[in-house]
């Protein structure tokens, strides 16, 4: 099997020749740049600075040579602008506080202050900064720039600034990226633009210079409770715009794309969900269904839904929404134990993730503990397909290399020995 066949078989619930594997495919299955460098060193790959694919989480680009040695089966098309609103182009060196030299876009414009590093949106130093990396932090967090708003007079347009028809720049980008990946034997994954419906990482709009509307994190959650009609109208408008853009995308690059990340909106905490099943069905489901139905009627793309946390009660609704793939499958959260998920939903949705706990085992466990956990997950999720091996969310900074190697060893052992 080629990598592409392997991924496509597994997401079609057929067991591939070996586990399909993703590290670095998208911004929620990525690897911190410091870890990418240590892996490159470990495998004796050419010494060169790691490119920052996504500056917000400081995710490193996993290049082909590293993909080959790690057995990675996916190829990425990243959005044409980063979460800070700039294009990744004309790379320059940047020296991180932890002593790593990385390559960043020329539009990566930061300023060091007493309490850390500040990032400017769209590379514009005249605008207020929209990201902050504390002095001992390994990635940026959004600076919420919430202006006063009248709760009784919310304007949908103000929360729609970042949603609009595909620009000529984006069209050109998609044409170029489609050419780049056409013919690859890896499965191509990309993020759709504007289909997530209230991803809390995007609500504060770190890519905008002067965001208006409801942009605070707590403000947003409160609006969900106090004014769901506003939220639904906003989501309807976002869906309309996204559907038109998906048509364009399909015309340009539809044939090269295999998997689309529709949505990174988190619905879970460690212990519970962020909303009731009824709320999910009323506020989100009709819009997700429009998006996913369009995709399934017009393309061969598989639809990918990300949500951290204890979301087991919501999974049947996600399936009804038309999502083919669930990520990151946070098995350590309440009610998310792997065997139960596989048994209840394994034939209806693909688990993309769940391979190892990045909050405990991978960063803090011993290599033996990592190996045991990965093997257990592979044996649980692997049989019958419907599984793409990935850690539970991005591999974080300070993760020991030997633990990642132990994870790869476990994948190999499973592939050799089977269940």
């Amino acid at each position, binding site marked *: 099997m080629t990598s592409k066949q392997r991924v496509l078989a597994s997401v079609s619930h057929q067991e591939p020749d070996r586990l399909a594997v993703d590290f670095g495919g998208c911004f929620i299955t990525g690897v911190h740049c410091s870890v990418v460098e240590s892996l490159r060193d470990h495998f004796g790959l050419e010494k060169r600075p790691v490119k920052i694919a996504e500056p917000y989480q400081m995710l490193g680009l996993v290049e082909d040579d590293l993909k080959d040695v790690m057995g990675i089966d996916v190829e990425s098309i990243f959005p044409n602008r980063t979460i800070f609103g700039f294009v990744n182009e004309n790379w320059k060196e940047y020296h991180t506080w932890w002593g790593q030299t990385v390559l960043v876009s020329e539009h990566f414009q930061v300023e060091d202050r007493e309490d850390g590093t500040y990032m400017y949106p769209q590379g514009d130093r005249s605008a207020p900064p929209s990201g902050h990396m504390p002095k*001992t932090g*390994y990635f940026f967090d959004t600076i919420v720039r919430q202006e006063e708003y009248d709760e009784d007079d919310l304007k949908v347009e103000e929360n729609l600034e970042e949603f609009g028809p595909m620009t000529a720049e984006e069209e050109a980008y998609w044409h170029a990226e489609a050419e780049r990946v056409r013919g690859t034997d890896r499965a191509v994954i990309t993020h759709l633009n504007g289909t997530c419906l209230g991803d809390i990482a995007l609500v504060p709009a770190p890519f905008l210079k002067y965001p208006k509307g409801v942009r605070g994190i*707590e403000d947003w959650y409160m609006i969900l409770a106090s004014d769901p009609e506003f939220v639904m109208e906003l989501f309807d408008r976002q869906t309309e715009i996204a559907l038109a853009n998906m048509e364009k995308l399909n015309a340009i690059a539809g044939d090269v794309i295999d998997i689309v990340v529709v949505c990174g909106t988190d619905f879970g905490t460690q212990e*519970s969900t*962020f909303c009731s099943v009824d709320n999910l069905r009323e506020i989100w489901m009709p819009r997700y269904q429009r998006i996913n139905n369009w995709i399934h009627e017009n393309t061969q793309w598989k639809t990918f839904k990300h949500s951290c946390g204890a979301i087991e009660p919501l999974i049947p609704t996600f399936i009804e929404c038309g999502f083919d793939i669930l990520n990151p499958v946070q098995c350590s959260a309440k009610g998310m134990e792997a065997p139960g998920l596989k048994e209840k939903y394994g034939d209806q949705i693909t688990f993309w993730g769940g391979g190892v706990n990045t909050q405990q085992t991978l960063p803090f466990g011993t290599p033996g503990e990592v190996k045991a956990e990965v093997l257990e997950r592979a044996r649980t999720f692997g049989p019958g397909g419907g599984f793409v091996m990935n850690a539970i969310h991005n591999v974080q900074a300070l993760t020991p290399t030997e633990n990642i190697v132990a994870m790869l060893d476990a994948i190999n052992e499973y592939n050799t020995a089977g269940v």
Partner: protein
Amino acid sequence: MSVMQETDLTTLTAAIMAGKRKDAKRITQEALDATLSPQAILDALKVGMDDVGRRFKANEIFVPEVLVAARAMKTAMELLEPVLVASGIQPEFKVVIGTVEGDLHDIGKNLVSMMLKGANFEVIDLGTNVGTQAFIDAVKESGAQLVGLSALLTTTMPAMKETVEAMREQGLDVKVMVGGAPITDAFATEIGADGFSPDAASAVDLARELVGAAA
């Protein structure tokens, strides 16, 4: 219109439970105008927040509903607080709370802070990215009986450990509770914290237990 009676304060409790900020403000003002006992008004708010906490723990309501309830409570407290101060009614216990150094995440910390205020703790919220010394200084200045430490990131869990150790080295007579996504009971024990809470409502129970407060 008849003058408000203490028995009418159930409407204030209901406004908190439903997260109706404007109702909570109006009823609190009416109660103050009717010179009802500030302690009775405070109790009505507390009963509302206790109910919110109970339903949150039971997964009957979720973070958005807790946030609007806490906001309603805060709006009412803005009116009530000066009257409480004038009457010499003070929270019995003080808690210093913050997200540890290197970590800018505060939703969980804010939820805990709001719920503790709802349970009538005086909360000294130091915000996010709080260094060890700032925690120590705040405890010394306020005489707080309790410290709440939050961390969302695996990379800032060591800072939580350092903060607990530094407070112990200083010999501060203070209980420490910890929470946040990657934090577990085992980690809390390992770093010498006095307790761990998995959610904001349970944090109130834990706080009461640690300071020996009545529920």
